């Protein structure tokens, strides 16, 4: 049933922009707008209010604490204006951790998405057992981080680890992973990619399947090669799903924390320490909720800025592709 519906509602290419224009049209009566607003309020208000009480308020509370100095559970909070924020950008333990979060998150996102894309191209072929492949690739995503990082640690242990045992058995020198920033980052990225690649492949696959097949036929008629089809049909068609997947992966990757805690614990000498790690330590070990709140807000602002810029850029180009004016100026 579901698959039929999926096909049945595939609209022709002209319809979507029309619908959009229709909605944007200034000639619409404000009465309709008011009625819409009323319905929207009735539906949204309860769930958003409830959300505000349960999630919004605690988060806001955490942010507000960013303007206080509150040392120790029994200490009393003292309002210190932007003191915590100033400290954030003066203390290398913070701004370096932020920088690490950003590039580590970027690295993890790009590797996961690129590898996932490659896998999805293969999974999109009419292969036997593709359901099994999908499941196998997705399995790491369902496992618990605590247990699987432990497995990675067993595999990677310098002294008795499976990989070093193997290296020694083929006559190589064992590698001392924890001496090196490179290997620390390497394994954090490998672990994160291991866990994320199946999910990414799945979403890409969905994107591939939604690309209008008639466009490929048209390209065939034009005599386009495989590469040209990928560049001119597949990739542009994937852009909207790329918006979703890039944004969600980036949000996830920049908050990487558990794998760092369990795999390198920030070592060597704090060279792999990420910001969420710091926030966690501030909140629970040092009970410095002021710094934890300030760091969270700074992080949220940075991620949000990046995300909304990307969102805007990608919806703009989405509009361009839907009106088939790729590369040209928007009319």
């Amino acid at each position, binding site marked *: 049933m579901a698959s039929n519906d999926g096909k049945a509602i595939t609209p022709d290419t002209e319809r979507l922009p029309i619908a959009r224009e229709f909605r944007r049209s200034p000639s619409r009566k404000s009465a309709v707008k008011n009625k819409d607003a009323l319905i929207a309020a009735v539906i949204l208000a309860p769930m958003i209010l409830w959300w505000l009480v349960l999630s919004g308020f605690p988060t*806001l509370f955490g942010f507000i604490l960013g303007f206080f100095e509150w040392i120790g559970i*029994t200490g009393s909070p003292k309002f210190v204006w932007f003191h915590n924020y100033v400290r954030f950008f003066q203390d290398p*333990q913070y701004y370096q951790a932020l920088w690490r979060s950003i590039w580590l998150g970027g690295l993890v996102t790009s590797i996961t998405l690129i590898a996932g894309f490659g896998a999805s191209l293969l999974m999109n072929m009419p292969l036997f057992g593709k359901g099994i492949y999908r499941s196998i690739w997705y399995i790491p995503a369902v496992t618990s981080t605590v247990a699987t990082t432990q497995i990675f640690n067993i595999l990677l242990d310098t002294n008795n680890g499976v990989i070093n045992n193997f290296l020694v058995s083929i006559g190589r020198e064992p590698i*001392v*992973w924890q001496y090196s920033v490179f290997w620390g980052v390497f394994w954090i990225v490998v672990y994160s990619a291991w866990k994320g690649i199946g999910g990414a492949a799945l979403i890409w696959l969905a994107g591939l399947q939604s690309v209008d097949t008639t466009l490929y036929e048209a390209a065939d008629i034009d005599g386009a090669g495989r590469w040209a089809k990928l560049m001119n049909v597949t990739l542009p068609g994937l852009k909207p799903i790329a918006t979703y997947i890039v944004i969600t992966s980036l949000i996830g990757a920049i908050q990487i924390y558990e794998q760092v805690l369990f795999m390198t614990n920030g*070592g*060597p*000498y704090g060279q792999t320490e990420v910001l969420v790690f710091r926030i966690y330590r*501030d909140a629970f070990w040092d009970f410095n909720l002021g710094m934890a709140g300030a760091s969270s807000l700074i992080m949220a602002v940075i991620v949000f800025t990046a995300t909304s810029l990307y969102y805007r850029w990608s919806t703009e180009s989405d509009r361009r592709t839907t009106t088939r004016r790729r590369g040209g100026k928007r009319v």
Partner: protein
Amino acid sequence: MRKITALTGSMLLTVALAACGGGGNSSGGAYPSPGGAQPADTSKTAEPSESGGATTITVLNEGAVSIGVGKLDDLFAAKEKEYKDAGTDIEYTPGSPVQTFPLQYQKIMSAKLKEQNISVNTEDWGWGEPLIQKQTAGFLAKNIPDIIVGETQMPGFAQQGLLEPFPDDMADYVRENVSPAAWKPMELDGKIYGLAAQPGVSSLYWNKKLVEQAGIDPDKVITTWQELRDNAKAVTEAGGGKFYGGGVYAAPNFGGYLRYGALIAINGGAFSDENGQPAFNSAQNAETVALLRDLNKAHPPGLMVNNNEGSYFDAWNKGQIAYLIDGPWRVQESATAGLDLGMAPIPLSPGGKAANVTIGAAFHAVPKDAKHKEAAFEYIKVMYSKEIQQLVADSNTRSPILKEIGESKEYQDKHPEMYLHYQAMSGDVMGLPTFTKDNSKAWQIWGDAVVKSMMTDGDIQTILDDAQKRAEMVTK
């Protein structure tokens, strides 16, 4: 929409204020002011017991004695059945070996507390990081059991004034009759805030087989740092990459600090001064770190600073390192792993004197906000009762803390290794300090400096000076 926003805003504000009333503002009232001495909140201690005359206290579990969560009396049957199914003898007579330690421990606790009309409800809040997380939140919300348990975080809680000090008569009794390892780390400004029923301190262990292969007499006890250095080097050379000298775990985490902390103390160094400010760069500390650097060369690369404590002890269990500084459980663990083991007090530095750090201790304490403080202190009293301590003695994995039992002739004869450990517990024993501010950052700076000293050839004093400077910036 605007109305909604305004409404939401004002509502948020109301809720925020209300929550402050519950969580923050009360710090002026029931919460003690930080650092300062505060009068005990007597109205709470005098709380009437529950109907029927019996008081039920809530106690956090500690893994070594846990038999499950819930009403203690309801747990015995299931646990007994489990032991029976596994073919384990559930009988126990004091003075003879015990196979069902947690069960017997809880049975004694339950019986002795029943005499005073107290029953126990256990909860499990985990251990390590999750435990600290939950305790922090519990303290803030004043939703905290009558007895809490923990390791390195507990002195910090005491420092913040979150714990109730032992009543004076109880504290006097403890000082007089109980081994310092059990309470010294929890002593602050002349008051005792917590107690561990079966703490550990570190000793030197060696794998006799490996030591012998290096041509060293496996039964000779080494007493100086120099001997430790030389022997570790000799074993490493004899091992030719198959096994190593070993020494002590020194990763930048509490597992490391707790173990080489004993070496720091022996050499007369310290992590902090009396005011909770870092004291990283003393000459004594530099000497100790120099020893660590030498010992690192007697380890498989990276092992000594491996973040995973498990990996280090794994290497010991697999017969890959010859020397080890660790707690008393090592005796039994090594027996399980089939190692022939030597045990002695930790060697001393030139001019150093015996000292130690409590390790693997589950400190039990009564929070200020506990609902049944008197009953909770009764619980702690049972922990150092003769019956419980006899049980600990019989377990042969830890030493009793009650002097009466630990110093008895019978104990010396029956458990020579654990008696050695008992003696170490009775010496100069301390806990790890808590820095006044941003504790974890200060520790991390220290830990990283030690790792850097071990992994590079840089001048140790310079590295420690630098760490000191950075740590001061954080804690001041």
